[in-house]
């Protein structure tokens, strides 16, 4: 066997070892929420010992030390690879559900044309439920100060003016309800019309249209 062939036989396993190390450091299950400050202060250490008992508490503090002294520094170096390929290895896939049932509504003049997961009001539903747009609908529906109100709002206003040329106003309303109950209440919203040059402007909750069945 030639030297090159011999080296090739070792190159793959060496790469595999690096990948094991890379995933272990950057994506250690259960450690994604642990920062350098976790269980660092005396107060935090006493609290965790009181909460979990002295043995498990001490083990948790020991793990936090390893996380702070070894995993995080190595992980920050490997972060360059993660950033280049956008392969950040922190996975928190549905660790908990939402507290409320939030929806986004779109009104053209006084007519409700879209409501999240509403079979009766499906204007632009296919687009808004696409996985690329759904996260924006999610943040806009759940947070009054969502960063992407402007982008999502402009997109919907433009689409409404295209599909409803006679429209005088477009109103976007975020609603909230408790799970399983139909106690839907509007939480925040924006309206655009000719007076505002079709720019969305925040409007008080009491002026929002109410679609409660």
């Amino acid at each position, binding site marked *: 066997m030639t030297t090159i062939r011999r080296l090739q036989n070792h190159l793959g396993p060496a790469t595999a070892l690096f990948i094991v190390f890379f995933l272990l450091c950057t994506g250690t299950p259960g450690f994604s929420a642990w920062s350098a400050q976790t269980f660092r202060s005396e107060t935090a250490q006493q609290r965790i010992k009181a909460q979990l008992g002295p043995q498990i508490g001490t083990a948790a503090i020991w793990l936090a030390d390893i996380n702070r002294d070894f995993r995080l520094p190595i992980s920050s170096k490997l972060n360059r690879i993660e950033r280049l390929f956008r392969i950040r290895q922190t996975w928190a896939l549905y660790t908990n559900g939402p507290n409320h049932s939030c929806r986004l509504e779109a009104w053209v003049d006084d007519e409700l044309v879209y409501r999240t997961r509403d079979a009766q009001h499906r204007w632009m539903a296919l687009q808004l439920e*696409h996985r690329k747009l759904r*996260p924006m609908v999610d943040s806009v529906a759940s947070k009054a100060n969502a960063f992407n109100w402007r982008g999502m709002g402009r997109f919907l206003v433009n689409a409404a003016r295209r599909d409803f040329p006679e429209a005088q106003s477009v109103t976007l309303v975020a609603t909230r309800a408790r799970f399983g109950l139909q106690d839907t209440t509007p939480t925040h919203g924006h309206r655009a019309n000719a007076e505002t040059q079709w720019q969305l402007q925040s409007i008080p909750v009491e002026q929002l249209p109410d679609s409660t069945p």
Partner: protein
Amino acid sequence: MNIWRRWVDHCNRPTDTRVYAAMRIGLAALVLGDIAHLYALGVADEVYHTFQHGGLSAFAGKTDVLGGIHPDAGMVALGFLVLCMLCVVAGVATRPALLAGVLTYAALGSLYPPGDRGIDRIVRSAMLLLIFSGSHLRWSLWRHIRGRAPVLHSPAWPADMTRWLLVVIYLSAGVGKLGHSAWLSWSGPPELYTILTDPLAGRLDAVWWHGLWWPFWVGGLVTIVLEVSSPLLLWKRIAPWWGLGGVGLHLGIAATMGLGIFPWGMLALYPAVFAEWLTTPQPPPSPVSKS
């Protein structure tokens, strides 16, 4: 035999190249289908332009390079990504196409961070692993045109690493769920109920299912058990049996949630899980070191 030698032999043991070829075609076809869907809905322009040029997202990622080049750089990159993925599906210049495709895919993710989801990171990670595999040695148009016979086996370590990636993903999700006491609580609406009936992601009717908790408690427990037991994927003989549960989990997600390509993207990695069953028992051509 020393530890390193055992590791080398373990990594270089042969696996069927159909495993890698199936992953290669599945992942690339998934990306192509996702882009085609975006085009069919008429929103590709909004997604891949910056906010200043009529796009949706009011912010770009820290590593965004496309936004500053040209207003249409995102659309050009999208076209290039399509070209790369077509090459990957066909098995033409597979490895360079995978690398260029992953870099372009990442650049597009930076241009539109809200739409760059967990599954996109998973697909990119898996494609990077495929670069080291023998995915180009089977079901390749390029080899067919050049009259080269397909290679039946290649080293197993990229499939092992794909399973290791799955372990990290599933175990993180499982440990995360155990950290939320609501998953194991018998009082109040189960966590799985709020996830599957969330109008923004789930498909089930919150009112209809309200009070009928037991399917969600059982489903939640099964999910946690499956995710926490995912290290079993590291045992090649047990992995396919665990994989049957994993397939059930992702088909369940596909039926009850509107997460787009997520369940299908995960299933595209499953040839690595079923590698033991897919590998034919014939002797390997010889990438195994036996010096």
